[in-house]
């Protein structure tokens, strides 16, 4: 039997908003330690890795490891039926082919439950090696979303260059070119409001704007985004979900053009 109770259903709503455009369906792997999800988009260019730890839930019980294949669109429909402050409970029997989602208002005057069919998904799992990234950039998630949105007007790919001076996002296209340069914040009151760069080695990689924009849908989950880069490996865009876990997006770089 699997049962997980979340005091703020809005959190799961935001998580689904953050992945539903990349993934049509995904397998939620439930175990003692929590819920994990790993899936690639159809083009196999990006990878979503999500982990919600059991201790982040109000109540969490998972007797046997369970893999639930979920159509995310259907789940989004169900999640639209609740308000953000509702208490949410997800339940499934050990060998069930359905998932039950229950919402109760905080004053417990309204209870609703929804049952959703599960799917058997045959998805490939990727082994992600432990990597010491050459550059780790922390910045406000809204700032990153803004930069991605702005630059995507100009070109399809964005070059992210990280040096000791700062990080530069640049692109060029039909109408011209655009550059945004961020330097490390001198003094920060709150850590998540500033830009911080840890760098061992300068890195310059090219990525598809479209995917970065899709990753930015996770911005409501966390005030801060962490970008990790190393030469010729996928970029990691990580959003920490407070007290619950994280979502990481991996994006394969584009092969740089010879100018």
């Amino acid at each position, binding site marked *: 039997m699997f049962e997980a109770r979340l005091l703020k259903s809005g959190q799961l709503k935001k998580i689904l908003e953050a992945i539903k455009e990349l993934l049509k369906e995904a397998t939620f792997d439930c175990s003692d330690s929590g819920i994990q999800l790993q899936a*690639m988009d159809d*083009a*196999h*260019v*990006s*990878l979503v890795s999500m982990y919600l730890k059991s201790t982040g839930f109000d109540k969490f019980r998972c007797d046997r490891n369970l893999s639930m294949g979920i159509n995310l669109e259907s789940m989004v429909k169900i999640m639209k039926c609740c308000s953000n402050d509702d208490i949410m409970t997800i339940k499934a029997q050990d060998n069930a082919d359905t998932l039950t989602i229950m919402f109760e208002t905080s004053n417990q005057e309204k209870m609703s439950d929804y049952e959703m069919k599960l799917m058997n998904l045959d998805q*490939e*799992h*990727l*082994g*992600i*090696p432990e990597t010491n990234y050459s550059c780790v950039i922390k910045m406000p998630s809204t700032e990153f979303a803004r930069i991605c949105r702005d630059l995507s007007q100009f070109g*399809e*790919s964005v070059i992210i260059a990280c040096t000791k001076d700062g990080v530069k996002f640049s692109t*060029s*296209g*039909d109408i011209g070119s655009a550059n945004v340069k961020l330097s490390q914040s001198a003094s920060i009151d709150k850590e998540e409001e500033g830009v911080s760069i840890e760098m061992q080695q300068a890195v310059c990689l090219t990525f*598809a704007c479209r995917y970065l924009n899709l990753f930015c849908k996770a911005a409501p989950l966390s005030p801060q985004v962490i970008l990790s880069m190393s030469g010729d*490996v*996928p970029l990691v865009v990580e959003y920490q979900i407070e007290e619950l876990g994280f979502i990481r997006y*991996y*994006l*394969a*770089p*584009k*092969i740089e*053009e010879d100018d």
Partner: protein
Amino acid sequence: MVSNITSNDNEKVIKDMPLVSDTTFNSKADFNQSPLSSKLNNSHKISLNVKHINDTSDNKQQKVTAFFPIRRSARKTKNIVNEEKQIALEEAIASQNEDGLKITVFPNKGRGIIAAKDFARGDYVVEYSGELIYIQEARKREAIYSQDISTGCYMYYFKYGSTHYCIDATPESSRLGRLVNHSRFGNLIPKVVEVAGLPRIVLIAKTDIKRDEELTYDYGDRSKESLINHPWLAY
């Protein structure tokens, strides 16, 4: 006058200026035009380039699978494991492989089989091969065999499904399964394997077996009559 001159000068200047400015403007325009056209060309080129990128975007865009290996779970379901075991056993039986076994003559109990190599627990060791017969036939034969004391006991009775069978390995053959001796605490365990719809008996290592250990299994016969005829069955 002075003012006139200055005005004239100014006029001159003004008259001149437009010319100059015109020319400069024109030259600028010209200067601009050529780069503009080249720029246009450039932008055209850029757009072509972009199109080119578009066309080859799939080539330029790498995939995450190129960086992270696909992890194939080594875990198998119980059914698959059992199927694999069954197939391995069937193959072993079909191969009639009797490697790693050696006939040895023991002073007190006659022939026996010792291991010529190490076997791990669960390994297939040898088939108890002989003629598969029904129990009625076996009883008849047993009656005949019992008249001749020199005949050993090579009848393996067992039940498979709801049918009682017997494997009669009494006639001398080159197969070694029939020569494995009895021990109540043997290191082999018999197992029925169905091959092509018929049951076969194989001996499986019950524990890890070291080289040169004698191979034995429990014949399981504890009936009074058998014990009288074959007192060693008690050990």
